[in-house]
């Protein structure tokens, strides 16, 4: 198929010299990987930092049951390992899921990956999960399949998984020590019994590790997710990172614990706090020394559709999908064309962004040591700055320094409050947004209103709408260059935790 050809073409081109934006930094994690793995992930939105601007994934909720309990999960909702807490997805039968996936794929050519990630554990519902995969492999062979699991049933299911030719598996591994495990997992269901405490945690850990080994032995890509729980596993996760890398996991993604009493989870009710942005970043940095970290994970919803961070699920509810007529053969051609063009853009951007760093480092040399600066970016995808400040539900945070621009992570604006009409207090939404940007010294967006502009300035964050539609990394580099030449980077960073006037 055409896609394979594209992959082979783009591969060697990217290898030649300093073509990636990660040159001198850690921005393009793919450059560290062996060619065989790099090819597999280069257009996978969840694994490739560049690709997630151009390609999209979707999840379907077909596997509701779960065989363990996590202290950060309330089972009224989706699996908290793979989605935001407190979200309920539309539960689909395998037939419905297949229909929906094909409808989305025909309408959104960017959609390259389908994941089954809950609610619940896909491998605790093997029939439903595998029936979905079986049909899709047959009817939509251009879609990649992936699955996320808590790992308990993984060793039992590995052979079945291999049959369906699934090449990406995510395992949530929060610990390798049963003492710590007992503080995260109160019980598991194993061999027809409920097993509590350390004993249960030990079985779970053993199964996760065994599953990881079995998958990598069989050449299947494994990503490991961990939830960072301050005071419980935060220090331990460095060891987890080391061990899972040793066993062949190709990415380790540390996500923050999100715990609110409202979610009714153990951690929420007991007042366990989540990590601060700084704590999370520090841990991600420490683990990055050990292995390839994935910073752009947005803890997407289990039934999310569309580009990462942009949910178009409403366009594809089951009642709408039932009425769509899909010519998948034709769609597949269109998809191949789009994907070829996107890969070409991606490659061009990778080449170009290399150049902006040359310019940037020359500024750095002209002056004394310049300190790194964090900047937030509002984007809806495509790798460019194209979102209005007021519409941003999340910001991408980049760190610019004299040597490179690297992607640090995401900051989500509190989604429980929709602002204006629903909460009647638009100002507090703005304050929340500004608090989300804590530590950033500039925010780049396509446009911004007068009031947020003022408040951002008061909070010591420079609003910037001058780089609309420009590639993100170039714009960040340009703004940094301005800061350097105006002497801003010689001064210590302001305290960004300024109280915002109410």
């Amino acid at each position, binding site marked *: 198929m055409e896609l394979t050809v594209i992959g082979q073409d783009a591969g060697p081109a990217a290898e030649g010299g300093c073509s990636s934006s990660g040159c001198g930094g850690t921005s393009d994690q793919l450059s560290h990987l062996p060619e065989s793995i790099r090819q597999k992930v280069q257009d996978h939105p969840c694994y490739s930092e560049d690709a997630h601007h151009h390609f999209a994934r979707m999840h379907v909720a077909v596997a*509701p*049951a*779960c*065989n363990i*309990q996590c*202290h950060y999960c309330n*089972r*009224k909702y989706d699996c908290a390992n793979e989605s935001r807490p407190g979200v309920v997805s539309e539960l689909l039968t395998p037939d419905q899921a297949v229909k929906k996936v094909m409808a989305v794929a025909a309408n959104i050519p960017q959609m390259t990956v389908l994941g089954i990630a809950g*609610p*619940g554990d896909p491998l*605790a*519902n093997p029939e439903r999960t595998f029936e979905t995969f079986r049909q899709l492999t047959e009817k939509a062979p251009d879609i990649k399949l992936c699955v996320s699991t808590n790992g308990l049933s993984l060793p039992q299911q590995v052979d079945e998984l291999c049959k369906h030719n699934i090449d990406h598996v995510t395992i949530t591994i929060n610990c390798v020590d049963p003492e710590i495990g007992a503080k995260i997992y*109160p*019980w598991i*269901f194993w061999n*027809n*019994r*409920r097993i509590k405490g350390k004993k249960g945690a030990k079985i779970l850990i053993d199964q996760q590790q065994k599953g990881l080994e079995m998958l990598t032995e069989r050449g299947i890509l494994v990503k490991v997710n961990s939830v960072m729980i301050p005071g419980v596993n935060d220090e331990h996760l460095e060891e987890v990172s080391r061990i899972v890398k040793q066993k062949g996991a190709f990415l380790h993604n540390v996500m923050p614990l999100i715990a609110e*009493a*409202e979610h009714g*989870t*153990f951690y929420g*009710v*007991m007042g366990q706090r989540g990590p601060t942005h700084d704590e999370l970043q520090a841990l991600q940095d420490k683990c990055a020394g050990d292995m390839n970290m994935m910073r752009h994970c947005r803890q997407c919803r289990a039934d999310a559709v569309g580009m990462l961070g942009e949910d178009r699920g409403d366009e594809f509810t089951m009642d709408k999908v039932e009425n769509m007529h899909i010519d998948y053969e034709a769609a597949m051609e269109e998809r191949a064309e789009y994907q070829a063009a996107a890969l070409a853009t991606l490659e061009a951007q990778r080449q170009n962004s290399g150049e902006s760093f040359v310019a940037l480092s020359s500024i750095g040399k002209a002056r004394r040591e310049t300190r790194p600066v964090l900047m937030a970016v509002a984007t809806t995808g495509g790798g460019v700055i194209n979102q209005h400040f007021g519409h941003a539900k999340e910001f991408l945070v980049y760190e610019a320094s004299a040597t490179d621009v690297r992607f640090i992570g995401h900051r989500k604006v509190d989604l429980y409050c929709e602002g204006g009409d629903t909460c009647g207090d638009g100002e507090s939404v703005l304050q929340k947004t500004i608090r989300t940007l804590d530590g950033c010294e500039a925010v780049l967006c396509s446009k911004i209103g007068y009031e947020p502009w003022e408040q951002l300035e008061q909070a010591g964050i420079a609003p910037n709408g001058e780089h609309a539609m420009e590639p993100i990394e170039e714009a960040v580099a340009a703004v940094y260059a301005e800061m350097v030449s105006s002497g801003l980077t010689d001064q210590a960073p302001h305290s960004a935790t300024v109280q915002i006037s109410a």
Partner: protein
Amino acid sequence: MAYAIVESCVNCWACEPVCPSNAIADARPHFVIDANKCTECDGDYADPQCASICPIEGAILDPFGVQANPPGSLTGIPPERMAEAMAEMQAR
């Protein structure tokens, strides 16, 4: 004698596939156990399967009408703390 699912069930599906007697049905407002089919897992397993995998305290009653998983037994949240947290949220 049979186990029973009551209104605190959140329809999470966990119990349905593990019942050896096919006694559990996906129903609304919540899942139900067919009392004529439930064998209490007798002869199949030492523990009643539904009550061993159900994540929700109080959702399943044993044949004597007693909660198979009383408050605090699954989540580890002491019932007093839960009550406190609920009160705090109400006050907000």
